């Protein structure tokens, strides 16, 4: 019972925070709501019996990736001009088609959830199970993701290296 209440509370917070994250004009406010929505989904994960995924959500998404988002926002120094820009972009004719598409997707998900029988299994998935799954059946996906990240890392280093060389007055 408590679990169900927790789930609905976290779900409400997540949905409301996500909506606010989309509709805020000020970029930093939108980011805060996005963080709240991520934390809410972490709680949903926990309630659904996936504590490891929940903590990773907090650690990786809320704790590291969103920090970088905030970092970029700080670097850009969006002031009142950014808010005005957002005002212009958020006209109804801009968001009406994406919202319709989203509604379609939502309807699909609801339909799928209704037809599938096993919702809320309640089994706790510990970190060990996650690890064995990741490096067992899903090892290919993990490797591909790591290759992608490595490529990104090398690319970022290459771009940064050019800048460093420019600073030192050398050529590539």
């Amino acid at each position, binding site marked *: 019972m408590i679990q169900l209440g927790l789930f609905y509370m976290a779900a409400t917070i997540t949905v409301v925070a996500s909506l606010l994250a989309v509709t805020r004009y000020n970029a930093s406010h939108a980011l805060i709501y996005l963080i709240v929505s991520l934390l809410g989904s972490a709680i949903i994960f926990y309630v659904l019996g996936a504590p490891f995924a929940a903590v990773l959500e907090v650690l990786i998404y809320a704790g590291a990736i969103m920090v*970088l988002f905030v970092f970029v926002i700080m670097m850009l120094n969006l002031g009142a001009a950014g808010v005005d820009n957002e005002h212009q972009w958020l006209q109804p004719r801009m968001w009406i088609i994406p919202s319709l598409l989203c509604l379609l997707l939502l309807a699909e998900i609801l339909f799928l959830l209704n037809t599938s029988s096993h919702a809320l299994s309640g089994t706790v998935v510990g970190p060990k199970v996650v690890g064995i799954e990741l490096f067992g059946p899903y090892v290919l996906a993990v490797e591909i993701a790591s290759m992608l990240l490595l490529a990104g890392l090398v690319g970022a280093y290459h771009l940064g290296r050019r800048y460093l060389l420019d600073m030192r007055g050398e050529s590539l």
Partner: protein
Amino acid sequence: MEELTIFLVIYGTLLGAFGAAAVLVWFERRLLGFWQDRLGPNRVGPFGIGLALADVIKLLAKEDWVPPFSDRLVFIFAPTAVVITMLLGFAVVPYTEHLFIADLNIGLLFFLGMTSLAVYSVLLGGLGSHNKYALLGGLRSAAQMVSYEVFMGLSLMGVVMISGSFSLVDIVKTQAENGWFVISQFFGFIVFLMAGIAESHRLPFDLPEAEHELVAGFHTEYSGMKFGLFMLGEYLSLILISSMITTIFFGGWLGPSFLPDLVLDFVPPIIWFFAKTGTCICFFILLRAAIPRPRYDQLMSFGWKLLLPLTLVNLLITGAVLLWL
């Protein structure tokens, strides 16, 4: 555990953490004074301990000012984040084998997650102030914290490998059999110590607020109790990191095994825990007294070029030893 005990532990932790943070305000200055051949604050009350109370009264009575040019929502939200996350982090600290708030099977990751969320307070404080010094402090802290989080997590993975669990109670129990992890995971300990200092931005690595370059960094615009919350958060994180070092590397509530059994039976486990945590806090204060602040690029290159390879090698060797020996 009974519900009543849990409630008692929760309130005990809350009061204890707040009280310890307030006393640390005085204790740190006093100890710094001794290390710098001064006396430190010794006027208010016996040994000057009334300074803790006086400081709290001063902060509460100050004008709580929000600058008109600031981003109000972000500005007010920022200082609360660090205190909330740090207090949440105390939830997984096991004081003794049976005295804790929650023994999560992902306790260690929960602690890491809470410390990584604490970044937001500094970051948003810098962003919401609309002040260039605050912004620079926030930028620095973002890069510093994100980098050192990596080593902080990785340095603990060796411990997790040996004990085979993320639960802090299990980690301490493993140390009862295998000896303290500070010996078998010495490099992990060193890296965790460094990363802990950087995460709580204590003095050798307090570049986000480096007062001789950035006025006061991210809390330049803060005053009154909002500044007080930042300070409280800093001391809470100091206590939290110290108790984590105690739990993970110094055997938590276990007494030193070289002592005779008579002493180990006589001293209750919680005394060992608090004694070790206190020693660790003193060491942090000694670092503040002795080591100068590095330059920002030195800090980053120290992290990425020394600590990261060190943790990876440590992890590799630990894994190899566990697998083949």
